[in-house]
């Protein structure tokens, strides 16, 4: 769905011209976690854990921080990384989930992922 837009964005940044994007851009997440983190930020705001404006300010801050120390066309740009960072800060700042608890759960998940990968590798060889 978004390929044309992304192509446009990439080529326009390189200075090349591209045919005009004309696709109907609707809800589309490149990766599963983007949709989840998007929905989480809205759900927690709707439940009154913070004002949407607080999230928006956090997102702006997170984007500004990135832009302050990267070139605008830096290929490491990732909008939903900024979104996640803003949400993490709000969740910790509003004592919704403890930062350490989140870190430790993340680590547990990564370890189990790694264990699966090792297992798959061993059984494949």
């Amino acid at each position, binding site marked *: 769905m978004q390929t044309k837009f992304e192509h446009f964005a990439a080529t326009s940044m390189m200075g090349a011209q591209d045919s005009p994007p004309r696709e109907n851009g609707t809800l589309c997440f490149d990766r599963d976690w983007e949709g989840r983190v998007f929905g989480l930020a809205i759900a927690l705001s709707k439940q009154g854990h913070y004002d949407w404006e607080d999230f928006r300010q956090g997102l702006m801050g997170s984007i*500004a921080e990135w832009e302050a120390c990267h070139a605008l066309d830096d290929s490491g740009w990732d909008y939903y990384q900024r979104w*996640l960072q803003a949400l993490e800060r709000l969740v910790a700042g509003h004592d919704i989930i403890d930062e350490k608890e989140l870190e430790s759960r993340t680590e547990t998940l990564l370890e189990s992922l790694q264990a699966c990968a090792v297992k798959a590798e061993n059984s494949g060889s």
Partner: protein
Amino acid sequence: MSDKKTFKYTADREIYSAAKVRALEALLIEKGIISDKTVDKVLSFFETEMGPFNGAKIVARAWIDADFKKRLLKDATAAIAELKLPAGMAGAEGEHIKVAENTPKVHNVIICTLCSCYPWPTLGLPPYWFKDPTFRARMAREPRAVLKEFGVNIPADVEIKLWDSSAQIRWMVLPERPAGTEGMSEKQLAALLTPEAMMGVAKVAA
């Protein structure tokens, strides 16, 4: 977490982010803050209730009803309420919508220079490039050149106005009704509209 592990994990930011989001959702569910259906509900609301189809209805109505158009330009939030569009996400990017009308002398474009504010209820979620730092900076600096790359040539005597949605206001564009659409129904007119036309980065083709 040891340094070696930290490096390994952050080196693959993608896997790390995916795991972190999963961990966050899982913890929120376990603590009873959200249910295991909450995120799916939000996403399905966006897919079915909030999207450019709403903006298309608003524009089509404004094209056929001059009084509605007047009200829309004066107080978009109130005029849009007349159409009984879904309001379940009010407060998240949709409370104060304003409409900028294209005319033969003025072409409007919506941007958000600081992040990615966008009128979700009427246009859905912004496309990838709208959020891109280079696009945001360039559109603010040289809109005529960027529009040309989009295939929209704005004559030199037409003023380009940029509407920055950084404050509490979400802008959308009321495009010009194309020639040759005189006999069309409201529904047929709505089908001509694209999110890009309502962002000001495309013209409406009949």
